[in-house]
C-alpha cells in the first residue's frame, strides 16, 4: 500500500463543513480551544458569526451545543475524542441524547495514533462510551473520502451522532465519487478462510495484511464497518452463516467497542467464534504513532501475525 496517497480526515471534515455551511445557514459549529487541531478554525474563518469557541470547557461545550440544537440549529461540536466522550459524558447523555438534540459530535484524535501526547490524550474507550447511549449513533470513518460522505450524512439525518476521526492521515481507500450508506458494511476484499470486520485505521491495515496473506495461501475477506451503531445486522448474519470464525479489528479497547457490539449481536442471533484485535485493558503510552500501532499489534504486521495464528 506504499503508493496509496495519505489524506487527513480532519481536513476533509473542515472542507465538508464549509461546503455544508454554504448550503445550510442554520448550521453552527462549536469547539473548546482546539479549533486549530480539529480544523474547525477553517469554518470559523469562513463563517465567524456561526462559530463559537467555548474555551477549555468541554462540558459547557456539549451543553451549549444541545441548547443551540434545541433552537432548531444543526450543531457540529468538536474537540479531542478523549474529552468529548470522557470529560463531557454526562452532558452528552443528558443534554444531547436524552433531549434528542440535533448535535453531531465530530471528535478528532481518536485512538492510540494520537502518539506522543500519551495516555491522557489517547482515546481508546470513546466508542464504548458513546455506543451505549440511547439515541446516539456512532461512525468511525476509514479515509478522507468516507469522512466527507459521513459528514454530509450526519448533517442530513436528524439527531445525535458521534463521529470519530484521527489525528493521523489515513491511506485513501475509497474511489472518488464514493457514496456512504449509513448502517451498511462494505466488503472491500473477498476471502474464503475468514472475514475481518474493521473500523477506522484498521480497515487499511487489515487490507494490507489480507493481501500479504494471499501470498502464503490464506484467503481473508475484509469489510469496512464504519457504522458501529446501528449495526448492519443483515451483513453480520450472512457473514456468520458463511464464516465459522470472524475477526474484529479496531483502534480501541477490546472491551466495549465494536467487537463487543458484534459479539453481543451474534451471540444472540448466530453464535460464531470471534477474534478481537485491539488494546487489552491497558492505557497507551507516548511514542510515535506508527511505533505505537506496531507495539500494540494494530498495524498490518500485527494483524497478519494475528490472522496467521487465528487460522492455524
Amino acid at each position, binding site marked *: 500500500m506504499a503508493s496509496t496517497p495519505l489524506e487527513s480526515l480532519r481536513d476533509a471534515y473542515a472542507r465538508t463543513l464549509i461546503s455544508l455551511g454554504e448550503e445550510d445557514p442554520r448550521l453552527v459549529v462549536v469547539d473548546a480551544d482546539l479549533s*486549530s*487541531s480539529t480544523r474547525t478554525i477553517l469554518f470559523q474563518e469562513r463563517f465567524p458569526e456561526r462559530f463559537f469557541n467555548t*474555551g*477549555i470547557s468541554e462540558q459547557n461545550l456539549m451543553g451549549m451545543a444541545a441548547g443551540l440544537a434545541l433552537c432548531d440549529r444543526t450543531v457540529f461540536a468538536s474537540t479531542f475524542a478523549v474529552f468529548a466522550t470522557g470529560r463531557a459524558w454526562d452532558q452528552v447523555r443528558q443534554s444531547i441524547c436524552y433531549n434528542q438534540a440535533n448535535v453531531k459530535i465530530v471528535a478528532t484524535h481518536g485512538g492510540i495514533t494520537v*502518539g*506522543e*501526547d500519551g495516555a*491522557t490524550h489517547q482515546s481508546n474507550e470513546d466508542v464504548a462510551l458513546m455506543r451505549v447511549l440511547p439515541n446516539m449513533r456512532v461512525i468511525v470513518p476509514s479515509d478522507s473520502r468516507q469522512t466527507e460522505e459521513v459528514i454530509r450524512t450526519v448533517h442530513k439525518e436528524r439527531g445525535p451522532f458521534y463521529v470519530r476521526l484521527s489525528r493521523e492521515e489515513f491511506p485513501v481507500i475509497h474511489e472518488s465519487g464514493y457514496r456512504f450508506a449509513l448502517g451498511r458494511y462494505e466488503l472491500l476484499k473477498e476471502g474464503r478462510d475468514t472475514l475481518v470486520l474493521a473500523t477506522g485505521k484498521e480497515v487499511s491495515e487489515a487490507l494490507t495484511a489480507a493481501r500479504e496473506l494471499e501470498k502464503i495461501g490464506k484467503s481473508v475477506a475484509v469489510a469496512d464497518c464504519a457504522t458501529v451503531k446501528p449495526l448492519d445486522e443483515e451483513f453480520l448474519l450472512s457473514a456468520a452463516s458463511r464464516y465459522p470464525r470472524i475477526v474484529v479489528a479496531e483502534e480501541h479497547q477490546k472491551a466495549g467497542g465494536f467487537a463487543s457490539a458484534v459479539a453481543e449481536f451474534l451471540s444472540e442471533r448466530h453464535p460464531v467464534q470471534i477474534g478481537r484485535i485491539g488494546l487489552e485493558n491497558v492505557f497507551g*503510552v*507516548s511514542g510515535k504513532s506508527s511505533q505505537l500501532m506496531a507495539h500494540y499489534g494494530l498495524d498490518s504486521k500485527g494483524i497478519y501475525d494475528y490472522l496467521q495464528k487465528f487460522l492455524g
Partner: protein
Amino acid sequence: MISETSYNSATLEALREKARVIRVKALKEIACAQSGHPGGSLSCADILAALFFFKMRLNREDPHWEGRDLFVLSKGHGAPALYAVLSELGFVPEEDLCQLRQLGSNLQGHPDRNKTLGVDASTGSLGQGLSMAVGMALSLRLDRSDRRVYVVLGDGEMQEGQVWEALLKAGNSGLDNLTVIVDANGLQLDNRVEAINDLSPLRAKGDAFKWETQEIDGHDMESILKALEKCDQRNGKPHMIVARTVKGKGVSFMENQVKFHGKAPSSEQLEKALQELSADR
C-alpha cells in the same frame, strides 16, 4: 533536605540560574522529541525554580520522603519544565531527558506518577489537578501534618468548570495548607485567553471565593519568593498567586506566540534559542 526560610541576593542569583537551566533543558527535551509544548514550559520556569529549589520541603536522597511537600502540575503539558527540575534534583537521570515522549520512556508526554520519580499526581487532562490537590490538602490536615500542597494552573485551564468547583470547596474548607500559582501568560491553544473566554478580574474572583490572593510578576524571582513566603501564613484561607507571565519567556521569537504553544523548535530555532538563553547569564 532543602528548607530555607529566607533568601539573600546569592539565593536569588542561584534561583535565576536554575530557571535558566530549566528553560534550556526543557527546550532540548522538546527538540529531541520534535513534539511537546515550549510556550507553557518556558512561562512557568521561574515559578518551578522558586518552588523546587527554595520553597518546597523535599529530600533529594528520597523522592518519596514522607515529610515532603506535594506538587501538582495541573497544566500537565508543562511536563518538559517539570522533568528539567526533576533532573536537577537528581530524580530523573540526565540522559533520560532526550527520551521525552519516546516509546518506552519514563518521560511521558504528560506527567505520570507511576513512571517518573518525583511526580506526585498524573495530569494532562486540564482542570483536574486542583481537585486532586484539594483532596491532598484535606488529607494532610486530617493527619495534622504541616506538609503543604502546591499547584500550578494554566490560565486557559481555568476555563474548566471543575477548577471553580475546587476553588469553591477549598475556600469554604479554609485550606490554608494549599497554594495555587496561576501561570497567567494570557495565551491558550487557539488564541489569547481574553479573546476566547476572558477570566479577568482573576484576583477578584479568587477573593470572592474566599482565597487569600496576590498578584505578581511571575518572572521576577524576588517577587515570587516574597509571595510564596506570604503563603506560609495559616490564617484559614487557601493561597492564590496570580503570576503574570509571558508565554515562551526567554526566547524572543517564542514570546507571546500562540504558534509556539505546542510546536517543537527546529534545530536552527533550538540553536538560536539556546544562544539567547546563554546570553542571559
